[in-house]
């Protein structure tokens, strides 16, 4: 579950807006009233229990400690200057790099004091309290060195692979805050990178050697897209984790004033853009355009259409057609190695399948028997793709995708393509 907060909120809101218009609008009204402050969340401050987060006060589910209120917000920050916080994407005022998305806890403090408040106020000296930002675990799944970023199956280690113009594959290691792993911990990690020989097609395993805080090995100059995978042991006695990388070009350290990064592992920003409107079904175009014009944050163009959520169409043929598009989009993300983005079209496809589920009673009994298990399977496999997308093992993703295609095919064949 990578960079998903924004798109998911859109999905959720769009879905519930259709399914449950009344309750959603009242929620929206109250949300709008408190627009200054994100809602309170309750977290555990015990080391190791950072993933405990609740929407109400109480005791930590892991250690029993009293939970502490915080406010979490999605902010845009400079890749290397985390002191910069902005509410919308843009360029870092310090070095001109594209801002990246992170989840942070916000609090308010007085200069010199160590007490943090969850709302702004006035200090004893009459000055307004200062807003403070602190990162959260898994708040940042963005590549730090222009490469491809994955999470390990232990949910704690994270890594980023880069392919350098010298023919070197370099692997940066991080913790759950995307902080570089301390040397002592990096020392326990070993791995190898595997590439296919261009002539013989045989796999060649190149052990990675440690160089400071990263591991690297020379794979040589490969034609693009350069495909390789890493086998990593996070502890000497642990099984190998596999991470698949596809590089369209050599990785570049984000440079001052660099153009918007378009490598495959780009974070899924851009929940709603004006470019979504022309793609929307004809019946909804005008309202969608109007709504998105007012709703859309300022975003750079060139967003992959697969990452743009569309409303679920009304008619079965339109839903089927969009389902086909989403199925192809997952394929193209897999081919490009953009595993962290797969969940977006996968969840959209799942929502389309659930919309078809509402139409299944119109089908003859024979077709319904095919459609029903196929829809259930597609929903299940969408979540499987979501889980695998974060882990970055191409073989597992491809196997899950094969199941997804099976289910999508059964769905396509059981519903009428014409009205």
């Amino acid at each position: 579950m990578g960079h998903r907060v924004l798109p998911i909120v859109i999905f959720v809101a769009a879905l519930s807006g259709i399914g449950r218009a009344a309750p959603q609008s009242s929620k929206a009204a109250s949300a709008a009233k408190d627009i200054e402050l994100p809602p309170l969340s309750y977290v555990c401050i015990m080391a190791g229990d950072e993933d405990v987060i609740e929407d109400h006060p109480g005791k930590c589910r892991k250690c029993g400690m009293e939970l502490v209120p915080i406010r979490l917000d999605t902010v845009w920050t400079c890749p290397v200057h985390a002191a910069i916080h902005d509410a919308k994407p843009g360029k870092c005022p310090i070095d001109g790099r594209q801002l990246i998305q992170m989840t942070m806890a916000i609090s308010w403090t007085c200069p010199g004091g160590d007490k943090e408040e969850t709302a702004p106020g006035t200090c004893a000296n009459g000055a307004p309290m200062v807003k403070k930002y602190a990162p959260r675990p898994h708040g940042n799944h963005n590549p730090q060195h222009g490469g491809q970023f994955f999470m390990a199956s232990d949910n704690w280690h994270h890594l980023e692979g880069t392919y350098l113009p010298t023919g070197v594959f370099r692997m940066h290691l991080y913790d759950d805050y995307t902080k570089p792993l301390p040397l002592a911990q990096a020392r326990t990690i070993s791995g190898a990178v595997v590439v296919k020989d261009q002539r013989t097609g045989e796999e060649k395993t190149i052990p990675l050697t440690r160089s400071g805080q990263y591991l690297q090995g020379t794979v040589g100059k490969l034609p693009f897209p350069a495909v390789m995978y890493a086998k990593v042991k996070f502890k000497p006695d642990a099984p190998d984790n596999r991470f698949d990388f596809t590089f369209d070009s050599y990785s570049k350290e984000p440079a001052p004033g660099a153009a918007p990064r378009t490598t495959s592992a780009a974070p899924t920003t851009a929940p709603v853009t004006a470019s979504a409107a022309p793609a929307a079904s004809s019946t909804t175009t005008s309202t969608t355009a109007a709504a998105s014009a007012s709703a859309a944050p300022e975003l750079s163009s060139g967003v992959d259409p697969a990452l743009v959520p569309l409303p679920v169409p009304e008619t079965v043929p339109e839903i089927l057609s969009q389902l086909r598009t989403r199925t192809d989009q997952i394929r193209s993300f897999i081919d490009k190695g953009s595993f962290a983005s797969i969940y977006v079209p996968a969840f959209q496809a799942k929502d389309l399948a659930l919309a078809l589920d509402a139409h299944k009673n119109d089908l003859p009994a024979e077709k319904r028997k095919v459609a029903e298990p196929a829809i259930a399977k597609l929903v299940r496999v969408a979540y499987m793709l979501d889980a695998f997308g974060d882990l970055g093992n191409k073989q597992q993703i491809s196997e899950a995708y094969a199941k997804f295609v099976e289910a999508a095919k059964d769905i396509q064949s059981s519903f009428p393509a014409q009205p």
Partner: protein
Amino acid sequence: MMRNSVSIRIAIAGSLLAAAALLSTVPGEAHKAITSKYTYNDDVFPILRDRCSRCHVTGGVAPMSLTTYDDAFPWAESIRAELVAGHMPPWNADEGFGNLKRAHTLSPKELDVVLTWATGGNPRGALDQKLPEVTLKNEWPLGAPDLALKVPAEFTLAADKMDDTQEFTLPSGTSEARWVRAVDLLPGTPSIVRSATIFVKDAAGGAPASAPAPERVLAHWLPGQDPEPIDSGIAFRLPAGAQIGVRIHFKKTWQFEGKALSDRSTVGIYYAPVKEATELLTLPIESPAATPAQGQSVTFSRTLADDVRAVALSADSVPPNISVQVEAIHPDGSRTPMIRLNTRADWDRRYWFEKPLALPRGTKIEVKANFEDPDLLSTAFSTPLTTASAPKPTAMRLTLGVLPANSKPTAP
């Protein structure tokens, strides 16, 4: 089914505005942010109560109750893994291959609600909302049986054992042969009765292996599942004075580690309400004892010597964690998919076909067993890149439940 397009437009416009309003206020912790619009109290609890609580309840056989928020939320990640892997609810047949009577599954909507909740921060709902208490129901789902036979003695699963298997013999005491439509088991101590096989102990035997033999396995019992009464017209034959065998697998969950627990279960037999019926027969499909494994897969088959109608299939002796696909290859070469199983230990059952499959003489029942673990999730999260744990090919047996073509109902 067409919705009113104007209301749709308004709803979409409204929802996008709502999304915009939420955008700036959403808690944004990537992994556990509360993104689920479904809450435990309102949406998840009714599903868990109706679909899972026969086992996942205090005193049930499952290792955890899911019937209160405090019980369920620590298991959210585990719920996600079990649902996504297709392990729960237990139903090992692949969707979309063959045409089976489906017993115990979640609807797509139910699946989505629980998964959205499990991955979306597990919101509880209103704190002051009181949910109805769910308690263990240990009763006969089909009502009181016609013949209830208690196992002869209490069995104790010792303090130092986590599981054990025990076979009991129960004299039926019947004076005449009867047709049986269903057989069930009522655990004495539900928390340790994990599975059971109930069968007619047959002294006779000796029928030629080429001909279908009477089905002696009356039930593969699993917890939380209703016994499936077979279609009217088909029945198991219970001979006069039959001895009933029941082999029970007792298993403790971690909650009872180090404790001794005793059980005395009861077998329940439901007679068919007819004088005449067609007896369910069986045809075993066996792999040769030393099947040479070609790579990781084994194919074996049985060709039918007579016209039959196939009604059921069970995998009696098949290793766990493999994929088994069964197809009927008709004499004209056409193929009918029958079943594809992802086998799991302790979840064997008899699968009934939605409709009897007419299989003419000369039809080949082909079984393909693939020894690569089909379970993508378990390989992803526990042992990636290793195949050492893959089960070794061994002799396997599946049982096809058949009726001879043109069979006429008879007295038992």
